[in-house]
Structure formats: structure tokens, C-alpha cells
């Protein structure tokens, strides 16, 4: 601990704390521009200069660690004059004219800083030097004319995402923000996560879509969960007058700490297909607008006679993007009340069924949490492309690589993370389990096995050959995986789980499966994980919501004589349906989601739905009423009934 004095207040702070953080903790305001609580200190803007007794010059408080008995002053004339001078220089460098900047009026940290210092004008005139602007990216614009060279975007891109796309070219006043080696951002290695936009203090990195749609003071902010995949990132949804302005990562969120990906930030902004506004019922071959009552009566008339038929009655499937409440109600109505055996989800358990069976066989949880990646010295990714899906998990791994974490990719397909890996095992033949066995044999051969295994070192040559690779490949892989502390294996669920668990035990690694969509795990806990097979079913009810259906599912669906679709948007599915029920999208409904690490999170309504659109829960209850059955029960208890792959939070 160090004892310091700031503006006459004596404080005790841990060694290594910066003066800025110590002052902030004590409630003493020091203005900053380049500092960001989630990024390493940089000391670029000089706004946070303070006077330190005994120091020859003013010191940047953001990069200055405390010393015992340090005496600091933040409000002397010298400090205040320097602050104003720093602002004067920043404003003189580039085009900081406010009236035509979309962050002006509250969202610009530079403007706010100038107001706070009471600046009514710029003491130095700007130099009117134009800087390049890059509008090649579909979502993000780099506007160098507004840049103050704070490098928050560069640090976010590197430190938070591990992508290192953004950087600076040239020196001094000529410095410009560029992507990669100076290529247009739209053609760069950018993964469109938008973290640069979220941290930019001025209007230099702009989100095209939300520009001029509303400032921070004019919007409503809903803290909710992204339902783009099973990672379960917390997001803040900004809305104005009941329409979406933009989506930001929640800095307070324990798991994602402000980081989200393209799927969470920009995909919901993309132009959507046509919304379904009213229920539709097929009459004389064409879909006609109908009332909810009419639509539900049509469905009831078809379902009532086939209620209780287990194998050739009604088939039902629901999207795993739906909240647990909806999935539970859905299961209750179709499986428990109408007695159908064919009740499943859009994913048909593809990413969960095998792990769930394995957990059943172990009779306990066997997976770790995403937090384990923070301390992982080595990561093995097995069969999951974390550049395409579950991107935030990929960011967690990529950001660790700079500090020396090993990465091993074991994938028969092309893998997006392969170019960053220490070793890639891409088998050209053999089964999916062969490479796993070969790695185990190599670990045994290295004498580093931490658990018993029937696989022997002498098996290595033949196992390696069976995958079309050489022995050295597996020795390399085994070394990458075992030469560091706390290895973690991230995998996409499949039938190889027994072997994978064995490997995890042999190298003492934590296992994490990425699962599929937002509520894959919840659906699995509710036993909705079987493959869809339509065989003589008289009716099918498909609650697709705002999700998309695979072509295979659509094909199965088309086989059934009477088809009901509950959907948000028009699609191939709705065009062949006999009854279409309009549904809310993820922003328009409340509900719970079970993340891949077993965390139960609440999603909140951010936008009021259109008059005709109902949530799935509402629709299920209305349909149950018509069918004369009652939906009751507690989904929270139901989630815990089955042994889970990962511990589920209460």
C-alpha cells in the first residue's frame, strides 16, 4: 500500500495504482480523453496532467503509478492552464467543427471536455489540412479529420478483440488511422465487431447506421442479452421513439465486459425481410389476412381430432432463439398436453444432444466456464470455427495469444483461427476421433500424461498415419497443449465426446462446448433435442419466430398436410404454410436465456411490438385455451431436472 495526498486528501491505495485511478476512486475528477477503464493506459492526450510535488514538469496521471508519500495537485492554475492549452492544440490540429458532426451535443468527449473548461472559442485557428476518410466498410466509417490520435480504437482492436486490424501510419500531426497495411477498412482483416466505434471519444470512428438517429441523452437504454448465439453477451439496446438506434456491449457485464461481435451489434440493424403484420389463413389456395381468433380456431379445428396421437398426430418444432418460457410452454402444449412424440427445436439437438447424453452417463457436469479462458496458457479448438460463430469466444482466445497463450486447432475443415495457431491438425482421412487419440498417444510418448489412458506411446505412428499426417505433427500438437498451464479445450459437440473427455483428462484441460443458438442448452435441458422426422403426421406447428429454418427442415415441413408457422418475417416457410401467426422479435419480448456456460440471464423488452404481433408465450396460452387445456408448471425447476453438461445458475 502507498500513502498519497491528492488536493490535500490523504489516501491509502495499493502499490501500482495509477494516480488517475486513485483520484477516480477518491471521487476527484481528472478529465481524460485517451483513457478508458477497459484499456491499458496510453498517455496520449495529455488532458490528465497533474502537478506532483518534486517533479520537474506536469505529469500525465493515467500512466503515473503512485509512490509512497506522493503529493499531487489536480486543480492548480498551472494544471488548469495546461489543460486548456492541450485542448487548444487538439482543436487546432484537425476539423473539429461541431455543427455537422453526429456526436456533437453530448456524445463527444472532446466537446464535453471543452465545455467543462468553459472554452467559448478556439484560441488558435485550425490548420484546414484535409485528412483521408475511409467509408469502404459496410458499418464503420473512419473519419481521420475528427481524430485526436488517442488510439483507443487501436487498443480496443488489439487488446479486447485480439484482431490488430487498426493501427497508425505516419508520425506527429500527419498520423492517420489505417486498417492493416493501409488497405480500405472494408477490404481489411476487420471482423466488424464495432468495438472501435464504441470506444471512440469523438466522431472519428462512426457507426454509419446510427449516425444522427439519436444522442445518448435522447435515447432509452435497455440492458438485455444478445440472442445471436449461446455465448449470452450482455448488451445495451439504445432506442428512440420505439425504434432501434444502436446496440452496444455492456461494459459492466461480468462475462463479455463490453465486447460483442458483428452478430450482436450490426446484424439486427441490417435491412430485414418483410414483417408479418396480421395472422394469415389459407383460403382457396391463397393466404388471406385473418383475425387472431379466426386463425386460432382454424388451428384448433385441425389439432383437436389428432390430440393424443403420439407418432402420427402433430409434429412441433421451435427455434432455440426463443426464451425458455416460450420453449417450456411450447413443450407443455405439444408434448405433454397433445401427447406428440415429435416435439423438437430448429437445431434438432445437433450441438447439445451428444454432450447431454454424455453428461447423463457421467451423471454430473463436466464443462468449465468461459472465465477459464482468461487463465488458459494453452487452448485447443476442436471442430468449432470461432471466427464464424460464437465470435466473442474467439475474441477471448485471440486476445490471449499476444501474451504467449498457445493455440492448437484440430479441425478437418478450414478453420478461421488456423492462421493464428501454433499448430494445426487437419486430418485428411480417418475418423474424427483419430486425431484426438493420436494427440493422446503423443502426450503419453512425451511422458506428460496426467491421467491413465489405454492408449500407448507405441500407438502413435499408426494413429498418425491413419489421419494422413506424420508423427511429428502430433508431437508438436501435444507439446503446444501440454507446455503451458491451465489448458482449455473448446469444442463443438459431437459423438467424439468420450475420446475428447479422455484427452481432457490426460492433459488436465477444462472442456467448454460452444453449443448452438441462444437457448440450445435450455432446450436440451427440456429434452427437446431429437432429430426431426416427419412420418405420417397430420399437422405441423413451427414456431420459427425471428430465426431462420434450414432447407432440410423446410423440406420435412412441406411433407405435412396442415402447416402452421409462427414467424416474425416472411420467408419460404410462411409462403407454404396454411396458417401464419405473427410473432414478436427478440427486442420485443421478455424472457430468459441459458448461456453456454449455464448462466440464466434475463432478456428485456426494448421495443413495443406492433399491434398484431404476439410473443410465443402469449400465442401458446391462447391456443391452449382454445384447445381446452391448461399450461402450468415452473420452467426454472424443469431446467434443473436433467443432469447438465455445465452447472446451471439458479
Amino acid at each position, binding site marked *: 500500500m502507498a500513502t498519497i495526498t491528492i488536493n490535500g486528501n490523504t489516501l491509502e491505495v495499493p502499490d501500482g495504482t495509477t494516480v488517475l485511478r486513485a483520484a477516480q476512486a477518491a471521487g476527484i475528477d481528472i478529465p481524460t480523453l485517451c483513457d478508458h477503464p477497459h484499456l491499458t493506459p496510453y498517455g496520449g492526450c495529455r488532458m490528465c496532467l497533474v502537478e506532483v510535488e518534486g517533479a520537474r514538469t506536469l505529469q500525465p496521471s493515467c500512466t503515473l503509478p503512485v509512490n509512497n508519500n506522493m503529493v499531487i495537485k489536480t486543480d492548480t492554475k498551472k494544471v488548469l492552464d495546461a489543460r486548456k492549452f492541450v485542448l487548444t492544440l487538439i482543436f487546432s490540429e484537425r*476539423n473539429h*467543427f*461541431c*455543427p*455537422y*458532426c453526429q456526436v*456533437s*451535443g453530448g456524445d463527444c468527449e472532446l*466537446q464535453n471536455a*471543452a*465545455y467543462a473548461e*468553459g472554452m*467559448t*472559442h*478556439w484560441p488558435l*485557428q*485550425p490548420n*484546414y489540412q*484535409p485528412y483521408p476518410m475511409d467509408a469502404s466498410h459496410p458499418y464503420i466509417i473512419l473519419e481521420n479529420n475528427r481524430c485526436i490520435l488517442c488510439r483507443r480504437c487501436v487498443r480496443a482492436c488489439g487488446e479486447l478483440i485480439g484482431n490488430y486490424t487498426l493501427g497508425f501510419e505516419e508520425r506527429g500531426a500527419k498520423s492517420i488511422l489505417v486498417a492493416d497495411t493501409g488497405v480500405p477498412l472494408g477490404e481489411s482483416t476487420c471482423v466488424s465487431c464495432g468495438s472501435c466505434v464504441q470506444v471512440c471519444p469523438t466522431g472519428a470512428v462512426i457507426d454509419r447506421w446510427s449516425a444522427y438517429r439519436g444522442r445518448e441523452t435522447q435515447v432509452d437504454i435497455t440492458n438485455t442479452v444478445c440472442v445471436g448465439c449461446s455465448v449470452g453477451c450482455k448488451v445495451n439496446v439504445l432506442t428512440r421513439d420505439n425504434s432501434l438506434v444502436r446496440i452496444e456491449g455492456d461494459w459492466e457485464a461480468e462475462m463479455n465486459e463490453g465486447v460483442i461481435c458483428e452478430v450482436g451489434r450490426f446484424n439486427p440493424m441490417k435491412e430485414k425481410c418483410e414483417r408479418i403484420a396480421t395472422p394469415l389463413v389459407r383460403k382457396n389456395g391463397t393466404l388471406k389476412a385473418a383475425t387472431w381468433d379466426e386463425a386460432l380456431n382454424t388451428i384448433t379445428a385441425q389439432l383437436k381430432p389428432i390430440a393424443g396421437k403420439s407418432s402420427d398426430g402433430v409434429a412441433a418444432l421451435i427455434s432455440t432463439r426463443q426464451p425458455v418460457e416460450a420453449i417450456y410452454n411450447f413443450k407443455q402444449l405439444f408434448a405433454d398436453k397433445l401427447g406428440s412424440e415429435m416435439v423438437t427445436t430448429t437445431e434438432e439437438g445437433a450441438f447439445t444432444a451428444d454432450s447431454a447424453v454424455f453428461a447423463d452417463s457421467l451423471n454430473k457436469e463436466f464443462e468449465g466456464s468461459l472465465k477459464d479462458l482468461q487463465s488458459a496458457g494453452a487452448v485447443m479448438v476442436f471442430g468449432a470455427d470461432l471466427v464464424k460463430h460464437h465470435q466473442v469466444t474467439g475474441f477471448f482466445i485471440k486476445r490471449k495469444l499476444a501474451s504467449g497463450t498457445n493455440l492448437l486447432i484440430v479441425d478437418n475443415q478450414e478453420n478461421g483461427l488456423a492462421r493464428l495457431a501454433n499448430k494445426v491438425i487437419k486430418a485428411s482421412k480417418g475418423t474424427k476421433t483419430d486425431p484426438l487419440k493420436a494427440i493422446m498417444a503423443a502426450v503419453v510418448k512425451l511422458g506428460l500424461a496426467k491421467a491413465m489412458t489405454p492408449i500407448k506411446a507405441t500407438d502413435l505412428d499408426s494413429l498418425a498415419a491413419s489421419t494422413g499426417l506424420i508423427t511429428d505433427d502430433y508431437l508438436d500438437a501435444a507439446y503446444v497443449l501440454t507446455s503451458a498451464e491451465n489448458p482449455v479445450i473448446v469444442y463443438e459437440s459431437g459423438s467424439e465426446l468420450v475420446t475428447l473427455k479422455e484427452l481432457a483428462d490426460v492433459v488436465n484441460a477444462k472442456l467448454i462446448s460452444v453449443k448452438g443458438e441462444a437457448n440450445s442448452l435450455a432446450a436440451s435441458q427440456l429434452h427437446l433435442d431429437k432429430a426431426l422426422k416427419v412420418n405420417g403426421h397430420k399437422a405441423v406447428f413451427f414456431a420459427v419466430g425471428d430465426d431462420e429454418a434450414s432447407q432440410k427442415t423446410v423440406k420435412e415441413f412441406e411433407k405435412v398436410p396442415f402447416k402452421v408457422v409462427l414467424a416474425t418475417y416472411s420467408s419460404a416457410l410462411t409462403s407454404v404454410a396454411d396458417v401464419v401467426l405473427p410473432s414478436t422479435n427478440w427486442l420485443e419480448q421478455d424472457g430468459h436465456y441459458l448461456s453456454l456456460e449455464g448462466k440464466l440471464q434475463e432478456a428485456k423488452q426494448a421495443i413495443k411490438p406492433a399491434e398484431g404481433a404476439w410473443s410465443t408465450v402469449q400465442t401458446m396460452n391462447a391456443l391452449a385455451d382454445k384447445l381446452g387445456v391448461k399450461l402450468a408448471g415452473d420452467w426454472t425447476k424443469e431446467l434443473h431436472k436433467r443432469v447438465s453438461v455445465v452447472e446451471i445458475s439458479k
Partner: protein
Amino acid sequence: MAKPKVSSDWLAGCSGCHMSLLDMDERIAQVVALVDLRSTPITDFKHPDESGVDVGILEGGINNSSNEEVALRMRSHCKILVALGDCAVFGGVPAMRNFFTIEESLRRAYIETESTDESGKIPNDPELCVPTKVRALQDVVPVDVFVPGCPPDADTIFYVLSELGQGRMPDLKGDKLAWN
């Protein structure tokens, strides 16, 4: 004590700041009670009294030799000079042409605009004023009071005029300080 005399004029701006001044509605009567409103571009007198005024207000930046002349005349005829609005304070929207050469801006304005036919030509009558780079008022004459805003709020303008009318220098901060 006689009421302070106030004159105003506009330069390279859009006249929006004067519109914002009028936006103070009935409070203009309070202002007139405090000050002796002399020449303005929206009243009959167009030039400040030869004997001088107490407060001169200028809207807009300086973008040609005529603006320069008006600014110099106002400066030499007033005790306190007020730069009203973003154009006068910073250069504002007209200053965006500083990122191009004057020839480029003139060509764009008189020849290349979509609504101009082949007969478009850059005016070059010797009696016309000469365009210059756009400058903030303070880059041409010393300024005493800066009132930024695009336009400044009517409330802010009322505050500035009533302070000056009562012999005090306005101090813009908090809600009254806005650049956009």
C-alpha cells in the same frame, strides 16, 4: 446613465443568429428597455453611428474583402465587440471551403452546380469584393465576447444582451455554452 447603444451586422453567415435573436419573442421589449438598439441588418439603420456605439455584434465569419471592411468599421466604432454564433466564433460552415482552394470553390459554385447550364461563369466584375479564405472574426479584429452556437439559443442571446445592457460582461457556461 444613458442606455448603451448597440449595433449589429452580418457577414459570412446564414442570418440564423439574427433569427435566433428574434426568437426571444416578447423579451425583445425587455432588451429595448435596457439598450438603445441602433443599426441592424433587419431594421432601417444599416450602419453604426459615426460617433460610435457601446456594443457591436457581428454574425458570420470573414470570407471576402467586403466582410473585412464591415468588421473593421464595426470594430473601430464600438467599445465591446461580440462574435455571435459559430461562424463568427470559429468560422463555422462557410469555413469548410478552406479545405479547398478558392478557385475550386468558385468553380463548384458558379460552373459545376447541377442547376447551372453552359453559360455559367465566375463573376469577375472589378467592383465586386474579393473572396478570401474564411476566417473567424477574431482572426481579423480583436473580439471581446464570444457567443458560440449554431445558432446560439435565444435564451443565451437574451442573457448576453441583458448583461451587456446592464454594464456587465456575460460569462457563458453550463447550459449557455454550446457550440452546435
